[in-house]
């Protein structure tokens, strides 16, 4: 069966229809079947509908996403309460250890993201991975810094990613590779994203899964949960009525 490639972090400005349309069109040409566009926390429904329509015209599937940047675990919990039932993907940018730990243990969080340049605030260690493996959170890697950074900064980033990917694999935490770009010239084809992961020792099959199987599974699982018939994982309402 043919893989559906997904980029869950296409940072197109959802306010600017023209740029969104252009970015989504390019993603379609590059071979993606599913894109995740982050919406601002104060997003109106009309804005979301407009982006969805653009995606439909381009023959793409849209996954609505919110990037939470909480400063405290309480702020994270409030954010999750507010957005979990409204959007397909909830990603958390973990800027402190307490937020990272809370995000990893909370089953409502889909993606754990860490500051790309501030290496002291990359908290994806064994404890974090163990918590994430028992919940449903995946470890997200944006490739944008690999393209824009140079020299010592890129070397340090690659070194951190190599260590974090090894930890994620040890604890069976799914890895999702996204572009994280807003500039169209920085968009890459899915096999190119997969090739970039070889720089931090992700093997070929895992790399392809990181741009296809893992992100698609997250969106599918969340859509099932957001559906009206969902009761619990594996249980759903198949029929309603007096004869049931």
């Amino acid at each position, binding site marked *: 069966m043919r893989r559906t490639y997904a980029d869950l972090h296409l940072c197109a400005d959802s306010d600017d229809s023209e740029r969104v349309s252009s970015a989504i069109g390019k993603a379609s040409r590059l071979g993606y079947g599913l894109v995740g566009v982050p919406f601002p926390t104060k997003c109106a429904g009309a804005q979301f509908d407009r982006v969805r329509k653009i995606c439909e015209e381009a023959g793409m599937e849209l996954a609505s996403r919110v990037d939470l940047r909480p400063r405290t675990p309480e702020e994270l919990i409030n954010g999750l309460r507010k957005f979990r039932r409204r959007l397909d993907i909830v990603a958390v940018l973990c800027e402190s250890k307490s937020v990272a730990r809370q995000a990893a243990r909370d089953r409502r969080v889909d993606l754990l993201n860490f500051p790309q340049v501030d290496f002291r605030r990359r908290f994806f260690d064994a404890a974090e991975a163990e918590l994430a493996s028992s919940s449903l959170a995946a470890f997200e890697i944006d490739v944008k810094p690999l393209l824009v950074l140079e020299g010592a900064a890129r070397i340090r980033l690659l070194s951190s990613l190599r260590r974090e990917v090894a930890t994620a694999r040890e604890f069976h935490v799914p890895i999702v590779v996204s572009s994280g770009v807003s500039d169209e010239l920085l968009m*890459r084809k899915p096999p190119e994203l997969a090739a*970039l992961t070889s720089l931090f020792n992700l093997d070929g099959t895992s790399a392809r899964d990181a741009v296809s199987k893992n992100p698609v599974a997250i969106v599918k699982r969340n859509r099932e949960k957001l559906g009206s018939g969902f009761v619990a994982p594996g249980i759903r309402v198949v029929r309603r009525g007096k004869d049931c």
Partner: protein
Amino acid sequence: MKRVKRRYLALAIESSEMIRADEFVDAVWGAVSKMFGECGASQTSLSLISFDEQKSFAVMRAAHTAIEMVRAALATMTKIGNKPTAVHVLRVSGTIKALYRKTKP
């Protein structure tokens, strides 16, 4: 002696400005050596087979063991001679004939 297997890559160059062949080759070698060092670059056996400035299309040859390295290095290219650029691999093939048959530049 074991025969060296090669792979041919069809590349699309995306840029708002015209890119010359020599600029392109320098940028590719620069990206490969920046990412893997001179020792790594020497293992790729890279060479430019053809370059079409008008269509922004290039064909390169590489050692088949180094294909992932070359793909990764090409993906990291964001500029060619200070011109913002992206290089996309359209297709990889074992022979030039098959590459041209399957690729429409």
